[in-house]
């Protein structure tokens, strides 16, 4: 059955968005990412204008991350305190990132900087996660304890003021640390036009040293707030949110997120990291191919990125 999308101004078979929602929602519940880096290109591939695809995706992520956060919260895997600090940083970073895009556009090579940032961030994050998690899967627990020797970075973090304990995550940090990294991810995410879950998850795992299962729940919690903000701004200023498309997507993604959360509990943190690393690397390869293979059309719709 086909349905007409009033804002995208196109018609789509209902199975396509519901199926995409289910698949991306599953990843969302499993890994704590919004999945925009997968969903937006897929929607464009199915004929949705790029600006509508990005805006509508943030609307459906509100639903998927609510569903996912709820599922993780029920089993005590959401660190609200950490989430709020990251959010405060992310919000500031978003504002800075939007200004950065304006400067890049004025300089005339915005697309190059955006694409390169995307490829390098995905490539570095994916490779590091893959190597690290495969390495720690091979190590015995006794060896792990030895490797947690204090690095200079850790010593620097400990010397910062405003030290506070995050009970759910079982870590102590200066409040400045999550705020700073939240801001950094916010800037990069705004430049790349993505939610930034795939950057936030490694930051929480490797820099904030949070346990993987709490990372997933907390990441979803802060994605939820980011996407509420983006959905509102997109509706208010750009009129790009397609409500019908969002409903079709969330029919799949809310259920996918629940299934992902249940399934995630059965996997070990290291296993989750390996799978996420492989997905991130696959997306990197896809983007590199898009950049190097001859495109079928040399003209595309304007707006967005």
């Amino acid at each position, binding site marked *: 059955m086909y349905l007409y999308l*009033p804002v995208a101004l196109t018609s789509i078979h209902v199975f396509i968005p519901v199926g995409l929602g289910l698949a991306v929602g599953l990843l969302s519940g499993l890994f704590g990412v919004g999945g925009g880096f997968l969903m937006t290109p897929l929607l464009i591939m199915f004929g949705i204008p790029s600006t509508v695809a990005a805006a509508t995706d943030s609307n459906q992520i509100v639903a998927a991350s*609510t*569903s996912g*956060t709820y599922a993780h919260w029920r089993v005590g895997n959401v660190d609200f305190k950490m989430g709020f600090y990251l959010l405060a940083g992310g919000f500031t970073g978003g504002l800075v990132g939007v200004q950065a895009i304006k400067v890049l556009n004025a300089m005339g090579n915005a697309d190059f900087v955006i694409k390169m940032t995307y490829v390098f961030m995905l490539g570095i994050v994916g490779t590091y996660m893959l190597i690290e998690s495969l390495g720690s899967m091979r190590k015995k627990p006794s060896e792990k304890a030895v490797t947690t020797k204090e690095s200079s970075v850790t010593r620097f973090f400990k010397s910062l003021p405003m030290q506070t304990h995050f009970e759910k995550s079982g870590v102590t940090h200066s409040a400045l640390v999550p705020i700073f990294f939240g801001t950094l991810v916010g800037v990069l995410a705004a430049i790349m036009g993505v939610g930034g879950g795939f950057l936030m998850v490694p930051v929480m795992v490797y820099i904030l040293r949070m346990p993987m299962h709490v990372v997933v729940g907390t990441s979803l919690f802060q994605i939820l707030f980011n996407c509420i903000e983006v959905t509102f701004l997109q509706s208010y200023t750009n009129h790009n949110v397609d409500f019908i498309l969002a409903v079709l997507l969330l029919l799949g993604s809310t259920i996918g997120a629940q299934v992902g959360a249940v399934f995630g509990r059965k996997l070990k943190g290291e296993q989750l990291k390996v799978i996420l690393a492989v997905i991130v690397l696959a997306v990197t390869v896809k983007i590199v191919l898009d950049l190097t293979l001859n495109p079928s059309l*040399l003209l595309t719709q304007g707006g967005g990125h």
Partner: protein
Amino acid sequence: MRVTFLNVGVRRTLFACAFVAFMIAAAGNASAELTATANHDHIKIDFFYHGGTVSVRGVSDRGTDLIIKITSPEGHEVLRQKGRLAGLLWMNVGKLTFEKVPNLYSIHSTKKLEDILSADEMDKYILGYPALEKHAEVGPVAGEDEKTEWFNHFVKFKESSQLYSTSLGKINITEQGGKQNYYVLLEWPYQAQPDHYTVSVYAVKDKKVVETAEAHVLVDQVGMVKSLAGMAKNNGALYGIISILAALGAGFGVGMVFRKGGGAH
């Protein structure tokens, strides 16, 4: 032929209310000889709309060739232009503006345009892609060759979403006395946005247009589709809040259902 049309027509026009079927549009105005009628003068976009068919029929002088052109009003489009950076990476390298181009342009003729019409006539009536290219303004480009190159990319882009199309020999002609009846059934793309479309029919003889006739097709949104599109455009804040609340509600709702269903924790 007629039976096939009815079957296809009936099946494809489920999207529109039955009463609009076969309503008669504005009839030919240029002459007493050439007439043009579209079976739908009003295509209504509701939730289940997935494009449809429009048939054009009429009468012309015996021995004339026919060209049928469907266009939307002329407008301008800004598109992103891809190019190779450093000879290696495909990037958006700029924007191109196309002026005086219709969003939809569809040409159907009994024979190849170049064989039945002089270049001047094609340009005069904007018939065929080369004539449309001459009429259009493309910028920024360096010279005519670059204009042609990018206009061809533009046509390819439009054809990929079925908004530009051409066909040859699709028009069915049956002779009757000194006249000929013509009939063509055309796919109406669902990508065609709400607008006023003009169906122009040209009767051609000795490389010249001898008569023209016109019909009109209005495409617009109705019901919920119209209300939602209007709200998104005119009341963005409320639309955004409703979208967010619906998403939050759905997220919590599904969460509750799974808790009851799962029960393990």
